[in-house]
């Protein structure tokens, strides 16, 4: 083989590889595009349906024949939606604050201190987590009812239920605290800082990402919770959150008049949550990936 042939051969191979690469990249592009469309389509549908004014029930086409804001206006003027929205917002706010406090206490302690019952405590909570949480709902409902925190007054009851057991969800933030070197604590302790000072002056500033992650997830959870809210509000419209309230629009006797209102409500609920989420996306991604790696 002459020298020319060899160069020709390698060139050909290079070209073949490049062609293969372009081909596979194109395939990936197509797949990604298809996936994006599939993932976005239902949400586009919801938005379009919410602007459809000609009728309130389900139809077989997507582009509205008459556009307008009537669904939104009706939603805010003729239904209890503003009340549900306010309920959910209050619940989310309180849950975010209190739950973050509790989770940080728990995870910091389990990550940093080595006390006698620590391992046993963690195993106990792991096993406790195997019980379906819904089971406790039966008794909690009756006890809360006796205190008067159900039906119309479900909001404080719900906050209590969400927050009380949140200490069991310490895994992700404990994993984060585990990655902060212990030598920092020890250095501060030698300088005479108490344990509390170490936490507030040294660890917390370093833990900003996980604090934001915890607040974000705690704030978002009440917007999506269905079963506990349904159980505790128990049919009383004044105590419902958005999920339970909007779900009632889809019941058999209401769907004919309220289907498009449901879509409008969905849009109103989703917009602030999505904006908040996209702003803090970085922290969420960090938390989720970290949590999965450290179990």
């Amino acid at each position, binding site marked *: 083989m002459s020298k020319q042939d060899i160069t020709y051969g390698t060139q050909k191979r290079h070209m073949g590889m490049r062609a293969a690469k372009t081909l596979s*990249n194109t395939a990936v*592009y197509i797949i*990604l595009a298809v*996936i*994006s469309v599939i*993932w976005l389509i239902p949400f586009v*549908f*919801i938005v379009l349906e919410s602007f459809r004014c000609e009728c309130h029930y*389900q139809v*077989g*086409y*997507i582009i509205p024949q008459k556009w307008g804001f009537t669904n939104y206006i009706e939603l805010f003027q003729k239904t209890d939606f503003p009340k549900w929205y306010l309920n959910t917002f209050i619940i989310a706010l309180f849950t975010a604050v209190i739950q973050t*406090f*509790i989770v940080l*206490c*728990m995870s*910091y*302690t389990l*990550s940093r*201190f080595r*006390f006698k019952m620590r391992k046993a405590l963690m195993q106990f*909570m792991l096993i*406790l987590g*195997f*019980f*379906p949480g*819904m*089971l*406790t709902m*039966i*008794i*909690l409902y009756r006890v809360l009812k006796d205190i008067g925190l159900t039906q119309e007054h479900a909001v404080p009851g719900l906050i*209590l239920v969400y927050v009380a*057991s949140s*200490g069991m969800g310490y895994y992700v933030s404990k*994993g984060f605290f*585990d*990655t902060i070197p212990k030598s920092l604590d020890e250095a501060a302790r030698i300088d005479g800082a*108490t*344990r509390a000072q170490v936490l507030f002056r040294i660890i917390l500033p370093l833990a900003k990402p996980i604090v934001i992650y915890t607040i974000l997830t705690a704030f978002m959870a009440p*917007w*999506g919770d*269905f*079963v506990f809210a349904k159980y505790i509000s128990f049919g009383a419209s004044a105590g419902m959150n958005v999920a339970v309230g909007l*779900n009632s629009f889809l019941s058999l006797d209401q769907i004919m008049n309220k*289907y498009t209102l*449901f879509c409008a409500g*969905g849009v109103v*609920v*989703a917009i602030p*949550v*999505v904006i*908040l*989420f996209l702003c803090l996306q970085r922290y*969420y*991604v960090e938390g989720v*990936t970290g949590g*999965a*790696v450290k*179990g």
Partner: protein
Amino acid sequence: MSKKKLTPAIIKLVLGCIALAVAVIFAVMLGRFLNGEIPVKSPYRSGSLLFRYVFWLALSGIAALLLLGLGLREMIKSSKFNGMAKANGIELKEEKSHRLQDFFKKIGHGFVNFFKAIGREAKDIVMTFIHGDWKTKISYLVMGFGCFARGQILRGILFLLFEIVFIGYMVIQGGYWLSMLPSLGINEQLTNQYDPVTDSYIKVPGDNSFKILLYGVLTIFFIIAFLYTWRVNIKQNRIAEEILKSGKKLRSGKQDLHSLVDDQFHKTLLALPMTGIVIFTVMPIVFMILVAFTGYDGAHNGMNKLFHWEGLTHFNEILNWSSGTKSYSATFGEILVWTLIWAVFATFSNYFLGILVAMGINKKGIKLKKLWRTVLVMTIAIPQFISLMFVSKMFAKDGLINLFLLNHNIIQLGGELPFWEDPVWARVTVIIINIWIGIPYLMLIATGILMNIPADLYESAKIDGASGWKQFSKITLPYMLFITGPYLLTSFIGNMNNFNVIFLLTGGGPTNAAGSSAAGNAGYTDLLITWLYKITMGEEAKYYMASVIGIMVFVVVGVIALIVYNVLPSVKNEEDFQ
């Protein structure tokens, strides 16, 4: 590493797959049998047939889990990745051949140690009494006396206060609840009793079984807390004596308070979270476990009508096979099988497809990475109930898709696609929609991990001439499995209890067309957890049945977790991440 090591792994994997296939076959047979599709000649035979199916299903299932787990473990150990892990200081634990045995040994040791500890404590209590001075001796009756006498006023007050509150509670309330606990109430509420004072018919309230059970449990918790505090009180006396003897000073109240933000800081931090967990999780669970042994339901709610202890009857109802309509055991078997099938599909389909999507986005030369990722991440942000309810209606008989197809004459009226009406359609649709829900999360997780795989691994694989598939199966997958083993377990358990997806999509339906022959109004897509919910919300509201099912869920989840924890290689050593 050498190829020799890989062959047993492959054999195990192959055997595991075969076992899995056998398990699936038996699961299908069991399902058909429970549906009554396999004719049974005599009722006697029906029981033995069921037993046979369940036995083989359990056996092959466990074998599949064990073999697949061990195979994967060995594959991971023998793959290239292991060397790299070692280089990074993460070392796989040496394989112990008797891990399960060790586990049972540990349980045995635990029991022995428990009784030993009780013996030690008892001995300590007696010895402290014999050797202690008079201050200590009086502390046995009057808690905190020793603290007062030795100048630790704050501790003394706390101990004494606790004792006073405890005795007061037991006299006024606790004694009554405790004495009623064995019977759960004697006097039934009487309606239409003639009241001579007002000359009318009134209700006379009787005992309240619900309150008796609730406060009985509370009282028992309180007694345990008191015994513990009493023990601490005695121990402190002994320690105080020893400190004084050695010529040191005791801590003052001020120092005690200061230690709560310093060397005892963990107690301060844990106080609030643990109180919440004990009151809102531990006690309700204890209560609900006890409910499984009573007759508490909608009709016998304790107030209008008493309920009583009924022993193991309800467990019998679920575990003893009976083929009648509305039998809980038949329905339970059916739903358990579907729950497991659902959990396997939901977990692994999301897992592998999520990894593939992440790999696609991360592929070299792909542009707009951020856009693709944001599109998927955005769907996480939208509260799940909105998308689930909307999609549920979209696939309904009179929903967007069917109406669209009707409008374009692709299907005829009456020939709508039975997404939620046909059992098989419903199950498949639920699984597919769950993929739509789940992939964005997995994509996020996988992206983070994929970026951590050292690039030189792939480089050297390329030089060795490994194909794309080989790179995936030898580097990417083992790495992912190694890192996300614990996550897979939690997401499996999460899927078993995935209430929202099932309930908001199908409501558990479709129910059996033949007039609901399933107990508790169960439908074909009901998981154990949604069935439990339905039972408590139904007209009969059989709380005891819900409670039995909850205990069953606990047992199933516990067994799976136990097997997985003992088989999978784990990176759960916390100190590794320091």
